[in-house]
């Protein structure tokens, strides 16, 4: 309980852990909260994944076999919402909670109680979202982008619950982001200057800034959806003087920075792992920082590239096309730097490195299809096809998710004090790598051939590819069970990990013992 205690009291019980369920409900410890975020993200990853399995099952053959179209729409919608807000974002926040205080030599996050509040809002928010699936009329079925008028005029009755659930998710994200920024700005150990911070800290600082800037915009747009649906306003209705395209502008002003929220921390993770296993310093540290900042700034200027087909003046489409292509430049800087870091390095290929390498290759493929999509006239052809689905799953699954998995393997020994099972890890990696490509690569082809996304049925010529994609999907889903097995095994025991864990690892988090003590850096370390 948070009665008044003196600072000395803390010193006496330096590594005293509260026990039982109260430890998790009432905790103010960044490591506990980080663990809860990570476990929550993993659970949501499997719930959202199960929905993806339903989608792939239905699309295994043309025609309608297993679910009705209404339910199919709910699956695509809730799959997207859960993976974005329930799996990827909380996983990154969990990593931030665990690692940032240790990386900068802080005793904890700056606002520890608010930290716990940020976490505990999430299970409740997703409980509300999942409850709607079982209510009359079903859950949200308008796509995770909830375009008006699908989400206003044509949506089912439970939309209000969707809106309020998004509201409290947003509150959680904003508080989490405030905590990260304040921790990084205010809690660095003496000598930890800006340009000495690990890149994971840098990328998270910029991610948190993006979160604070755009989550309120999401709150604004869902509020307008709520009033349009239930209070007869007409923000997105031309008959009242509004415009459905206005929805898309506001949504994507949030939505585009949001996709960078889901990839910038991944850049930070890869920038931590590659130097460790190449046993070289990161090539071009400063340029990495500037590239991250440039991507963040550009992310506010590209939103309408999601809307090329909705009708905009030619000048506007050109503007958004060029700014979008400009993003390829700082991103290219990053990819170049990772490759240059490996150049003539003494490389070894443990599981984190394998996932990081797969990230670099597959994320680049996703990035390049992004440049294709940025070309306005070409986008007229690609828009709303499986090509788009292929693009964003390459950057989000083999990009963001692979980086999270890499981070888990990389830091598991630090968290649990045990080495994970390298053989099982490698098995997990190869199964994931092969199945993820079976799953997403053919989507490029069916998309280019014109198969629309978010439709439960398709023309016969897409049948073979879709069967193939579904098999890839099931294999990818099954492969992730190996991951759970590895984590459980590692948490329960295994070879003792040293403090440094990896031969080439550098940074404050590798100077504390493994597992990391409950409280680290009660007194800040000196950074040379």
């Amino acid at each position, binding site marked *: 309980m*948070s009665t008044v205690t003196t600072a000395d009291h803390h010193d006496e019980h330096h590594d005293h852990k509260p026990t039982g369920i109260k430890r998790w409900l*009432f905790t103010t410890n960044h490591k506990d909260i980080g663990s809860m975020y990570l476990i929550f993200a993993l659970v949501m990853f499997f719930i959202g994944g199960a929905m993806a399995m339903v989608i792939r099952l239905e699309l295994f053959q043309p025609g309608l076999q297993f679910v009705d179209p209404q339910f199919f729409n709910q699956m695509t919608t809730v799959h997207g919402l859960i993976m974005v807000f329930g799996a990827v974002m909380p996983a990154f926040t969990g990593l931030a909670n665990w690692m940032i205080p240790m990386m900068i030599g802080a005793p904890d996050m700056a*606002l520890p109680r608010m930290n716990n509040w940020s976490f*505990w809002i999430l299970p409740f928010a997703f409980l*509300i979202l999942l409850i709607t699936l079982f209510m009359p009329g079903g859950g949200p079925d308008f796509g995770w982008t909830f375009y008006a008028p699908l989400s206003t005029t044509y949506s089912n009755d439970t939309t209000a619950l969707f809106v309020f659930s998004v509201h409290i998710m947003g509150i959680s994200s904003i508080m989490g982001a405030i905590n990260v*920024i304040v921790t990084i700005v205010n809690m660095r150990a003496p000598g930890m200057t800006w340009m000495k911070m690990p890149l994971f800290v840098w990328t998270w600082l910029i991610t948190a800034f993006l979160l604070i800037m755009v989550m309120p915009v999401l709150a604004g747009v869902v509020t307008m959806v709520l009033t349009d649906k239930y209070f007869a306003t007409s923000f997105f209705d031309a008959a009242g003087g509004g415009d459905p395209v*206005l929805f898309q502008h*506001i949504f994507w002003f949030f939505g585009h920075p949001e996709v960078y929220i889901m990839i910038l921390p991944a850049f930070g993770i890869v920038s931590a792992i590659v130097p460790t296993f190449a046993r070289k310093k990161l090539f071009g540290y400063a340029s990495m920082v500037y590239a991250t900042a440039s991507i963040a700034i550009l992310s506010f200027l590209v939103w309408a590239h999601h809307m090329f087909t909705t009708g905009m003046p030619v000048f506007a489409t050109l503007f958004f096309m060029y700014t979008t292509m400009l993003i390829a430049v700082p991103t290219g800087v990053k990819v170049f730097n990772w490759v240059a870091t490996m150049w003539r390095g003494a490389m070894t290929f443990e599981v984190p490195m394998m996932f990081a390498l797969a990230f670099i290759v597959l994320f680049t493929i996703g990035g390049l299809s992004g440049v294709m999509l940025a070309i306005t006239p070409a986008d007229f052809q690609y828009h709303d096809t499986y090509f788009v689905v292929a693009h964003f799953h390459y950057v989000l699954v083999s990009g963001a998710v692979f980086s999270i998995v890499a981070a888990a393997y990389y830091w598991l020994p630090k968290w649990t004090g045990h080495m994970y099972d390298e053989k099982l890890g490698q098995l997990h990696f190869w199964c994931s790598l092969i199945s993820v490509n079976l799953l997403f690569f053919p989507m490029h082809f069916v998309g280019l051939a014109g198969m629309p996304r978010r439709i439960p049925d398709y023309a016969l010529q897409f049948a073979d590819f879709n069967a193939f994609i579904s098999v890839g999907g099931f294999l990818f889903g099954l492969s992730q069970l190996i991951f759970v097995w590895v984590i459980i095994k590692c948490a329960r025991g295994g070879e003792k990990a040293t403090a440094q864990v990896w031969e080439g690892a550098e940074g404050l988090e590798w100077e504390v013992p493994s597992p990391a003590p409950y409280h680290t850096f009660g007194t800040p370390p000196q950074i040379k």
Partner: protein
Amino acid sequence: MNNESYQKYYVPDQSPWPIVGAVALFFIAMGAGLFVMDMDKEQSGWGGYMLLLGIAILFFMLYGWFKNVVDESMSGLYSAQMDRSFKQGMSWFIVSEIMFFAALFGALFYARMIAIPWLGGASNNEMTGAILWPDFSAVWPLLTTPGGTETQAMGWGLPAINTTILVISSITLHFAHTGLEQNKRKQLTTMLLVTLILGVIFLGLQGYEYVHAYRDLGLRLDSGIYGNTFFILTGFHGIHVALGAIILFFVFLRVLKGHFTPEKHFAFQAGAWYWHFVDVVWLIVFFVVYVL
């Protein structure tokens, strides 16, 4: 942050308040959602009760949480570094609020500068106007929507008075702050009280204006994009003034109890920042909603 000035950073022990707050938000979100869903039904469900329960738990949580924080602060647990954390946290919270209003102002801008001219046939939309809404004239305030809803525009006489009231309240709050910094407690109490009274008067006049809009002008939340933007901007601003007033009220109670020193008064400062922020938002609301 050099080593000499280092003080121990206070990491609180376990606290029950965050989980209580999470439960409160669950009831608020679930209750508000169910309440809105059942609004037009014959039989209203228990959404409203759930919402009230959530709000009650939230207030209980806020009371308990702030009590802990105030106790900790009064017993000197907070270092200068801790104070900076609070200040930075509050600043970033205000940034997020600015972005919330930016989305609403953006909607007004888009509707007025792009959507309505296009509906009237501007740019390359000549046929939209001619075929879909031939009788529509693109003017602002939009008194007749393309669908035919009619309303009257709100004047800016009363809002001008309200603007004066809020600006004065910001100034009096500033004097309260200087009073606190120079340890003139009497100036602090009076000026803070004047600020609070001005805030309440502002809210009262806004309420009067809403009654006037609904009863005399037929300007309603559902009277097309003009009414939509009018009520959503002034409404959310009003909610923020109310929140600011509540914060200042509790600050005032603490002032009466003799809290705050000229050097350390984070809660006062946070409340003051928030108040100045809603004041600035009002100035923008005044110009873009009423005057222009």
